[in-house]
């Protein structure tokens, strides 16, 4: 297959110009995710939009526990693994953790709900006034800290799929592709230019969004920025390749829109943008495991929140690389100018 860098560059530059000059799309691409991140930061400044949850350490096999706070509308759940439960307190998934056997309890300093539950615990436990407060190891992680990698991934998914898929279908419908097909430009060169342009746009908008949230909301990053960049770049290539495949043949914006929605909605719900995939039904977890966005978000979260390196998330990266390869080949193979 012939590949002239000059041809690719021309397509790349033309597409970049189009994106930057289309003010309404630009404002939407950058503005909407900011509104989402900040909206969620304020709306759920204390944990997930779940009920208030207290973990009670219980012996293995025991699922029923005493409502230690004596409060209605508070979920008391049995926990068996103290380590794992502490991590959930750290992430505000549990607002308080109580071990009745040892008289100890844990709350996060940043959790107002935790504070209220702590007061209730002391009020209810007149017969046991010796509750010992323990510190939660590590930094507390707010919901918005946990949410950001997911929102970045979701935004990337929408801009990749719609930005590539829709634009190519529109080009095909209005005859831009047909005009290009009459020149020596090859389909492969055209697709490379589109991919390159969208990749740069995605990385630029994601960086702006990331830095804005990172600085203004103080969202922590425990791993390396370079590792994050590698993960998001791979995820972007994978999602763009998916968009190219969707747009390979159809000239109908309605059909393309339907297909894109069919892809984006399950990913938006199942890929762990809003809540952990662990809470999904087992067979939905299997579905989530084949969605590229799941791997992108899991890897990004591991780097940002747990501070791990690329090696620790290599299984996610391999899935992303393979998926990208398959869809790139498929998209290029199926592509028709007409």
């Amino acid at each position, binding site marked *: 297959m012939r590949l002239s860098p000059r041809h690719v560059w*021309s397509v790349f530059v*033309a*597409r970049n110009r189009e994106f930057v000059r289309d003010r309404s799309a630009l404002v939407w691409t950058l503005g909407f995710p900011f509104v989402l991140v900040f909206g969620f930061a304020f709306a759920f400044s204390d944990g997930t939009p779940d009920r208030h949850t207290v973990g009670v350490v219980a012996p293995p096999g025991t699922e029923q526990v005493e409502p230690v706070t004596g409060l209605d509308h508070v979920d008391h759940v049995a926990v068996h693994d103290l380590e794992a439960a502490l991590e959930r307190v750290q992430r505000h998934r549990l607002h308080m953790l109580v071990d009745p056997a040892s008289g100890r309890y844990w709350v996060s300093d940043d959790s107002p709900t935790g504070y209220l539950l702590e007061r209730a615990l002391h009020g209810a436990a007149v017969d046991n006034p010796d509750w010992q407060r323990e510190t939660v190891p590590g930094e507390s992680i707010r919901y918005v800290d946990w949410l950001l990698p997911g929102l970045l991934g979701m935004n990337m998914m929408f801009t990749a799929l719609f930005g590539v898929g829709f634009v190519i279908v529109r080009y095909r419908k209005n005859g831009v592709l047909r*005009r290009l097909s009459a020149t020596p430009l090859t389909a492969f060169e055209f697709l490379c230019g589109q991919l390159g342009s969208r990749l740069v746009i995605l990385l630029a908008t994601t960086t702006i969004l990331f830095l804005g949230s990172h600085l203004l909301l103080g969202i922590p990053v425990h791993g390396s920025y370079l590792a994050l960049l590698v993960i998001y770049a791979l995820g972007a290539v994978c999602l763009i390749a998916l968009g190219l495949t969707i747009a390979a043949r159809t000239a109908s914006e309605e059909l393309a829109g339907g297909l894109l929605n069919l892809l984006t909605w399950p990913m938006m719900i199942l890929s762990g943008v809003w809540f952990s995939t662990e809470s999904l039904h087992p067979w939905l977890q299997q579905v989530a495991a084949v969605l590229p966005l799941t791997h992108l978000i899991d890897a990004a979260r591991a780097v940002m929140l747990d501070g791990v390196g690329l090696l620790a998330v290599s299984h996610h990266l391999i899935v992303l690389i393979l998926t990208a390869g398959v869809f790139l080949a498929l998209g290029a193979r199926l592509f028709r100018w007409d």
Partner: protein
Amino acid sequence: MTAPILEAEGLVKRFPGVVAVDGIDLALMPGTCLGLLGPNGAGKTTTVEMLEGVLRPDAGSIRFRGAPLDEHFRARAGIQFQRTALPDYMTVREALAMFASFYPRAADLDELAQLCALGEFLDRYCNRVSGGQRQRLLLAIALVNDPDIVFLDEPTTGLDPQSRRNFWDLVETIRARGKTVLLTTHYMEEAARLCSEVAIVDHGRIIAEGTPAELLSRHFGDSVVELPRADLGAGEVDLAGTRVDVGDRVEILTRDVRASLDALLRDGARLDRLRVRERTLEDLFLELTGRALRG
């Protein structure tokens, strides 16, 4: 004898339920301008798109300078489609530069802009220019590789008379530079003015072919005397020709104009609104393709 620059044999193209092109042979000599004429749906655009290498024929062969349509052809052909869009938010200048970058050899863009009179809107977005400007821009893009052969598919459809005449001048300038032109149109005036040869296409076949003068003399040896029906006299005499009623007018097709006029005078016809004219390509076109309305 020179060889044709573009040659097609036995072109066939079927679409579901319709044979759009049903066995067309063509040969274009270098420097000529061939006009494909035909009513809507006759197969002109399908034919020209196969010749452009954009549409693959179901049968038949096309050769450019004796070779199949390949990369060399794409580099040496200039194409103006009937309907085409350019990317949004791209200026005229940028569009020219982008298309030029796709070709191994490009024309001088400043000169091209001057030739096609793009100067006043070079920095405007392509999709914000008027109809006439747009056709000139599309022609400029078709010429961006300094092509040997230029395809123009209904280039002046929808233009006002000024823009159309302006476009014709442009095509004549291009022809003067030795380029071969293949043009489709349903304006007979356009074909008569620009084309050295015409081929009339209907139902996917060529039904007449030759220079405009050849075609007219082959099909007609007569002239037309035309007047409103109300102006005819008693209608008692032989009009020395064939009478055809067209709406509220009467056309007398005659080989002897003097005899027909004498007859009308004798019959007491009014002559104020009478017109005598030669047969035109339009007459030929209507005669060959019929007067019934087409889709």
